[in-house]
């Protein structure tokens, strides 16, 4: 009897009994938020009807986000279920006031899993939420798959989930970054620029070169390509296979050591890669390009005085006295940088005559 009572207690005192039928809930997959004088909320709900892969769009306003969500119930007959959101699109003027405002809603909601993509946009959210995606019917799925794919193959997009964004936002000595999207020709397109934050406010965007540099330093773009001019008019491309980066900060100098493995993908110049001379020429041009990109990233950091690379965090962990006794802004403004790039070409894919050596 005691045993049976114990088993029964397990059901009632754990608080894990939230019975809800699948048909009674609306599965939200995409949320977009804007803020002017009050919150404007647009959500996409997955359509349960047979043989349709569409989403249904609901809009509402509210004084708080929670209020806006409750207002949707005036229109939507089922209870919203937020456990499966894939993307959370935020209009950039929400961040101008500070991200903490709406992040509070997400953190307090027990239903939301923290592994969705959070995105910044410049365009009107109503336009974005009304666009139908072609290849993958569910827009949120399409966006999050797109970010996942292009962060690997392109390298200018960062695949940053909400939990990672939260970590960089509140961690000491590092600032948050977010990927962004825009509308081109009535299509949702991933933007080449990374949004950067100071404290929790959106300050600026990095351009595509700086974004690429940021991703290389964070080892985020593992299969992306480096394209550079190899003579006056023509370009060549190398694919990065492996990125190994670490940095040190000694005597006001940021020393970055990069070890790259790359493979030739396209060679349009007349360079003889059968001998070491030609290969070395390519290698130097490749290294110059990588250095240029990373220098751009560091220059942007110095110019904006926003420590998105996490130099402050490095100092906080390794040289705490130095971190405490100096103003971080001054350190960043006055630092020098030294970049050591070491590259190994694994294969050169001999196609042309005389290339047999590789």
């Amino acid at each position, binding site marked *: 009897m005691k045993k049976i009572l114990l088993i029964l207690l397990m059901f009632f005192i754990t608080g894990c009994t939230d*019975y809800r039928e*699948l048909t009674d809930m609306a599965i939200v997959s995409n949320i977009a938020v804007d803020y002017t004088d009050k919150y404007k909320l647009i959500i996409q709900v997955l359509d349960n009807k047979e043989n349709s892969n569409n989403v249904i769009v609901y809009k509402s306003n509210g004084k708080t986000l929670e209020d806006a969500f409750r207002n949707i119930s005036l229109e939507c007959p089922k209870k919203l279920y937020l456990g499966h959101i894939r993307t959370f699109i935020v209009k950039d003027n929400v961040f101008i006031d500070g991200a903490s405002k709406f992040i509070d809603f997400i953190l307090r909601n027990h239903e939301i899993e923290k592994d969705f993509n959070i995105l910044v946009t410049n365009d009107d959210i109503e336009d974005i939420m009304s666009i139908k995606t072609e290849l993958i019917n569910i827009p949120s799925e399409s966006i999050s798959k797109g970010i996942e794919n292009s962060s690997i193959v392109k390298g200018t997009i960062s695949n940053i989930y909400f939990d990672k964004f939260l970590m960089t936002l509140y961690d000491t000595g590092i600032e948050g970054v977010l990927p962004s999207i825009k509308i081109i020709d009535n299509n949702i397109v991933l933007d080449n620029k990374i949004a950067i934050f100071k404290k929790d406010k959106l300050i600026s965007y990095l351009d595509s070169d700086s974004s690429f540099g940021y991703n290389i330093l964070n080892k985020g773009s593992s299969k992306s390509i480096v394209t550079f001019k190899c003579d006056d008019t023509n370009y060549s491309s190398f694919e990065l296979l492996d990125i190994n980066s670490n940095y040190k900060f000694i005597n006001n100098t940021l020393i970055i050591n990069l070890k790259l493995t790359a493979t030739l993908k396209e060679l349009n110049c007349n360079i003889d890669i059968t001998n070491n001379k030609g290969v070395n020429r390519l290698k130097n041009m490749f290294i110059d390009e990588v250095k240029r990109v990373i220098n751009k990233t560091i220059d942007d950091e110095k110019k904006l005085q926003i420590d998105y690379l996490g130099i402050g965090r490095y100092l906080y962990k390794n040289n705490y006295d130095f971190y405490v006794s100096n103003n971080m802004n001054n350190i960043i403004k006055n630092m020098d940088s030294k970049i050591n790039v070491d590259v190994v070409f694994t294969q050169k894919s001999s196609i042309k005559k005389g290339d047999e050596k590789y």
Partner: protein
Amino acid sequence: MIEKIKSRVGNSPDFIVRELDLCNEKVSLLFFETLTDTSSINECLLKYLGYIKTKKKISLNLANYIKKYIPAFKIIEVFNIDEIITILFSGFVVLNIGSKYYSMEVRRQLDSGITKAESEKTIRGPKDAFTENYQTNIGLIRKRIRNENLWLEEFNVGKKSNTKIGLMYINDIANKCLVNNIINEINNINIDSIPDSTYIYDYFKKNKSLFPNVLLTERPDLVSYKLLSGKVAIVVDNTPYVLLVPAFFMEFFHTMDDYFQNTFNSTYIRLIRIIAFITTVMLPGFYIALITYNYEIVPPSLLVNFAMQKEGVPFPTVLEAVLMNIIFEILRETDIRAPSTLGSALSIVGALVLGDAAVNAGLVSPIMVIVIAITAISELIFSINDVSNAAKIWRLIFILFASLSGMLGVFIALILLVSELVSIDSFDFPYMYPNAPFNLIDQENNILLTDNYKLKFRNKLTAIKNKIRGVK
């Protein structure tokens, strides 16, 4: 005396007393025509007795002469009336000469004969199965182990039925303690009749567990294999199923076919059987937990798929699952009990009602039909009925717990299931051996089956006297 016997058996019309007059002496044959082979009585006994009628010389010592020369391979003198009655019921003919009584066996074959194994089919290996005949069953085992160490002990159990029970074990392998234990248990049985070997099994059962703690089999090759790994076989008259003691849980996932095939294949199939067991016990509960409580762990695309199929079904998922389960059990039960001529009609109705019409009418979701179908198919993988019965009950427990608190309930039920399994013992042998207690060598005949083990070792726990099967 004869009149006395007649009245003891209630003047049964099938009790025949054939009186003969031989050399001026009255000789009578007593037998049951329903239990004896009457043609052999006619052909042999009566013909022979009619032949000696003409010989006058032997009239001096007729009883001795008949005892010496009658064409029967065994002739026993019986003395009192109880013995006579017992032996009459065993299919003997009793010959009365003067005051002496002799008995001869002319038993009629009353069983179905050796047939193919019905419920434990194999692809390779012998096809014969036990019959209802005690002697045949013992013979089938003896045929496989021609060794002096295969010992047989006989008991008569059942106050009214007097059923013969044979205990078989290999003297230099089996655990003597276990044998004595079983003998004690059999002696303690106090019942009027033993209709089937499962009655013995009920007497052996000490706990309330749903899982069987003896192995029931109709395959003589399995029995001989298990005897050689130190188990004790119990053969019961009138039953084509032999009990093997002790039983381990993992043995229900083994079949005789495993030993006749490539061991890699056997290992793979055993893995499939374990997956099937887990499926048949847990799948409906798991599905209910996923769809009503823990939808967070379902990938979104799959969840939408579930939601699409569930759309428009008026019942809660739990009710749907229980209903489908009951409908399937009804179908199964009717399929077993109905005459085979109705079988095809049944399956058509069942397939149409369950598979198509119910879904089209929007009463059940297609995914629930799939879930119950997979569950039902997985259940049928066990040839031993007791295991699938236990799985059936545990499935309902899982459904109940899952409907109360989702995944948490499923895991509570899982803990209960595991604690039940590890708490069973079969004649003081741990049921979950070789998993708990763990034994490294016997792992090779657990989920795994290796050639090395197959050719070399016996079970380490039961074969205490002789652990090596052979040296490769």
